């Protein structure tokens, strides 16, 4: 399926012309908006684009350059095109884009998906694509009828001559339309005329996901495909000293044992013999520098680092000059562990390396990096490498890797075998495979004046950086501070006259990575916990206290007021229940949650309900936003209750879902989502719901126990009342 589509798409790109009786729209796009998060100032090149194909059968295929990993990109981006095109939604299809510079992420400068950007970053480009298509079709119809294009209108896949009622379907017009050139600047629809944008349109990818036909990377079929599992070092940074594969090769179905840079691949004619082969492999490992890594000693190391001044991320006012004036002071530390992304589909990649070509099928968030890495390994030119993006069985950042390791493994093994190979990671490989959300230690102190207002806030963050020493450094590290390590704390919205936020980089070694909501996944827990602590010290209501400190931020206030109102904050909470609030801005959107919890007879935390308010600016698909908020609650709650990767003798202690637990059906709270009608700049929705979950829940628990939870995940002792 992928092969056929990609061959034809390549052709489209080269010719930008009529292929197979269809129309491919070629047009120019305007320079792109500033995207400060990724250090992009402007995209100045005018690239020709190829996002729409219309067939003579009236089928409109939108070629989507953002990977579908559950966030709904294969629906929301076609919605943008379909609206401007006045398409008949029942005729709209999606197709994953091949790798080509025209499909680059406008902010990343390469093809990729992440940072909760897919919809807002394509808002203009995809609407323009639709408008260009509409222009060409209308011109084609007008020429056919010999009338002025201005006397024609479009509706549900037809061009209609208003005066005479004559109509032609888009499919009937493709041949003529292909010869027409759309102007660069097109008038876009008045928002009041939107047919799809802002409406709860059903996802286009649901039907195939409920009958077993959806193709994820792990499902790709290629003739003569081999399967490989890889034995990787038990300690990060380790290497195989020697290995004995004699027992492995005796297992029926095992074909070969191949050493690659990241380990030893057992190649077989299916998963099961490869698994049995790997179990039978004897390896002597050189465990390397992290062989004695232990979570308890690492925790002490982080605490010591927090006493160092660190690189300054934010400095406002002068803490030393006001410290004496504080009536109340709080000095505390917060700890958050390493976390695995644990997408449901374990990592995998199919590669087929030949003398003059390399073909890859993979569920990835970073197509360009993967393709360039494959070219480097094979010695082929980038244009000899073809990469097909399949559906992703979850991403959460795990499939956006700078070293393309899960692609590199498959390419290396295929190159050695001279055959197509699918490398599959087991769940244990995934949980123990690194690229975790960095472990973080926060040391924080604050002082209040007599009225309870904060006088100062001193915050020292210790965590690893996955940007330093990589191509990301130039974009993400400024004045010695990795912005992804301090985001959410360095840009504190609360009014604190004297603020100091610093970062100490923890030693690297354990591979770390962006994990759904990145730095905010730990900073929001600390900031929103600490604000609650200050409210308590000031003897103020946590909602009202936040309101007081957010006076200069109408957008945040609006979200905060909405969530408080919808959750009935002014009414007392039911007996035996605790209620907590938290708010956080990230990825251009503001999300607040109110959580309601109780402690069960079995001494577990029950989260009954989470009321959510989000301001993400322009809404494209409200049902997708709701779905993402529900998902964010489950993801954040999993981290709050269970998520933890720890080390002993250099080894990851957790290995599968029994000891790296994920929230289950019986633990899912009722989630009630309120989307603000907003004129704010458009933001993301995939991630910003995650950061405020854990603090809202733990602030609710505080109401029941009187004890502050400052370390995640939750421990049984945290549920006991303060003595």
């Amino acid at each position, binding site marked *: 399926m992928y092969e056929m589509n990609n061959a034809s798409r390549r052709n489209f790109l080269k010719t930008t012309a009529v292929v197979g009786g269809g129309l491919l729209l070629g047009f120019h796009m305007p320079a792109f908006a500033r995207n400060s998060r990724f250090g992009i100032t402007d995209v100045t090149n005018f690239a020709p684009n190829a996002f729409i194909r219309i067939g003579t059968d009236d089928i409109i295929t939108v070629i989507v350059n953002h990977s579908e990993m559950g966030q709904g990109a294969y629906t929301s981006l076609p919605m943008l095109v379909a609206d401007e095109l006045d398409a008949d939604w029942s005729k709209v299809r999606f197709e994953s884009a091949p790798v080509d510079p025209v499909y680059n992420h406008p902010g990343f400068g390469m093809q990729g998906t992440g940072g909760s950007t897919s919809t807002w970053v394509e808002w203009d480009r995809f609407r323009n694509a639709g408008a260009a298509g509409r222009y060409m079709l209308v011109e084609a119809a007008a020429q056919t009828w010999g009338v002025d294009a201005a006397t024609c209108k479009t509706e549900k896949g037809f061009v209609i001559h208003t005066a005479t009622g004559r109509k032609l379907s888009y499919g009937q017009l493709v041949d003529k339309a292909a010869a027409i050139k759309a102007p660069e600047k097109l008038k876009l629809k008045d928002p009041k005329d939107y047919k799809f944008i802002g409406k709860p349109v059903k996802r286009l990818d649901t039907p195939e996901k*409920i009958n077993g036909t959806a193709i*994820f990377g792990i499902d790709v079929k290629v003739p003569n495909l081999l399967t490989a599992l890889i034995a990787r070092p038990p300690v990060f940074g380790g290497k195989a000293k020697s290995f004995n594969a004699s027992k492995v090769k005796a297992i029926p179905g095992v074909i070969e044992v191949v050493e690659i840079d990241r380990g030893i691949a057992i190649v077989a004619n299916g*998963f099961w013999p490869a698994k049995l082969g790997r179990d039978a492999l004897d390896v002597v490992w050189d465990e390397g520098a992290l062989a004695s890594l232990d979570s308890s000693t690492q925790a002490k190391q982080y605490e010591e680092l927090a006493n160092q001044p660190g690189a300054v991320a934010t400095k406002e006012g002068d803490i030393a000059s006001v410290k004496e004036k504080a009536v109340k002071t709080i000095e505390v530390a917060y700890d958050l562990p390493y976390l695995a992304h644990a997408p449901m*589909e374990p990592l995998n990649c199919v590669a087929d390396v030949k003398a003059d070509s390399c073909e890859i099928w993979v569920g990835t968030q970073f197509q360009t990096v993967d393709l360039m890495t494959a070219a480097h390994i094979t010695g082929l030119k980038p244009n000899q490498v073809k990469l097909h993006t399949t559906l*992703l069985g*979850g991403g*959460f950042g795990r499939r956006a890797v700078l070293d393309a390791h899960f692609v590199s493994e498959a390419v290396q093994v295929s190159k050695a075998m001279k055959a197509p190979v699918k490398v599959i990671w087991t769940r*244990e490989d995934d949980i123990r495979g690194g690229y975790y959300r960095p472990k973080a230690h926060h040391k924080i102190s604050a002082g209040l004046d007599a009225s309870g207002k904060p006088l100062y806030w001193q915050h020292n963050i210790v965590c690893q950086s996955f940007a330093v020493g990589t191509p990301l450094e130039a974009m993400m590290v400024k004045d010695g501070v990795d912005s992804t390590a301090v985001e959410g704390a360095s840009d504190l919205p609360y009014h604190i006259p004297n603020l100091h936020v610093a970062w100490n980089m923890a030693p690297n070694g354990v591979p770390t990575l962006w994990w759904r909501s990145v730095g905010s996944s730990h900073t929001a827990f600390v900031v929103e916990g600490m604000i609650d602590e200050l409210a308590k010290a000031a003897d103020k209501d946590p909602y009202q206290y936040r309101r007081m400190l957010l006076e200069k931020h109408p957008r945040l206030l609006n979200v905060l007021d909405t969530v408080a109102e919808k959750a009935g904050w002014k009414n007392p909470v039911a007996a035996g229940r605790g209620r907590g609030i938290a708010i956080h801005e990230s990825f251009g959107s503001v999300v607040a949650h109110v959580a309601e919890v109780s402690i069960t007879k079995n001494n577990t935390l029950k989260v009954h309900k989470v009321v959510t308010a989000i301001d993400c600016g322009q809404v494209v698909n409200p049902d997708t936003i709701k779905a993402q908020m529900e998902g964010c609650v489950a993801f954040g709650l999993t981290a709050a209750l269970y998520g933890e990767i720890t080390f002993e003798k250099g080894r990851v202690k957790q290995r599968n879902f029994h000891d790296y637990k994920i929230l*289950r059906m019986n633990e899912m709270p009722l989630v009630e989502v309120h989307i603000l009608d907003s004129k704010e700049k458009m933001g993301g929705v995939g991630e910003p719901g995650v950061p405020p979950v854990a603090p809202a829940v733990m602030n609710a628990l505080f109401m029941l126990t009187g004890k502050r939870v400052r370390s995640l995940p939750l421990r049984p002792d945290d549920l006991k009342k303060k003595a």
Partner: protein
Amino acid sequence: MINLKVNGKAYQVDVDPSTPILWVLRDTLGLNGTKFGCGMAQCGACTVHLNGDAIRSCVSPVSRAAGKEIMTIEGLSDDITKRLQEAWIAEDVPQCGYCQSGQIMAAAVLLRNKPNPTDNDIDLGMSGNICRCGTYQRVRNAIHRAAKMKPKAVK
């Protein structure tokens, strides 16, 4: 050789009898709708029906299925399945979609045993199926919706 019946079709497979049903379905028969998630009966992504019961195919040796009927997501076509699939679309349940075959296989058994399940029944019947995207609320709503639907015609 092991004789299997999968989705009503007879097969003879020449594999090690200890091979999990999951890998016979995927690697030998090419039926990829059943997913690999954990390999130790923790997540339910590999759920299939064996003589009508929901089982975890990732830990069930193929020898266990000899002479029995396996039903996978590709073969489901009864009234309950049709209602579930319609409800899944109405609630727009899937996000990434990877766990959804297993969710529907589990839900089908639940609805057969409990035609009008309570929330507690759904908790009991579905808590073996992990969804990392967190679609649980929609899975729950879709099961309730399917339970209320009129029976569908079956070919």
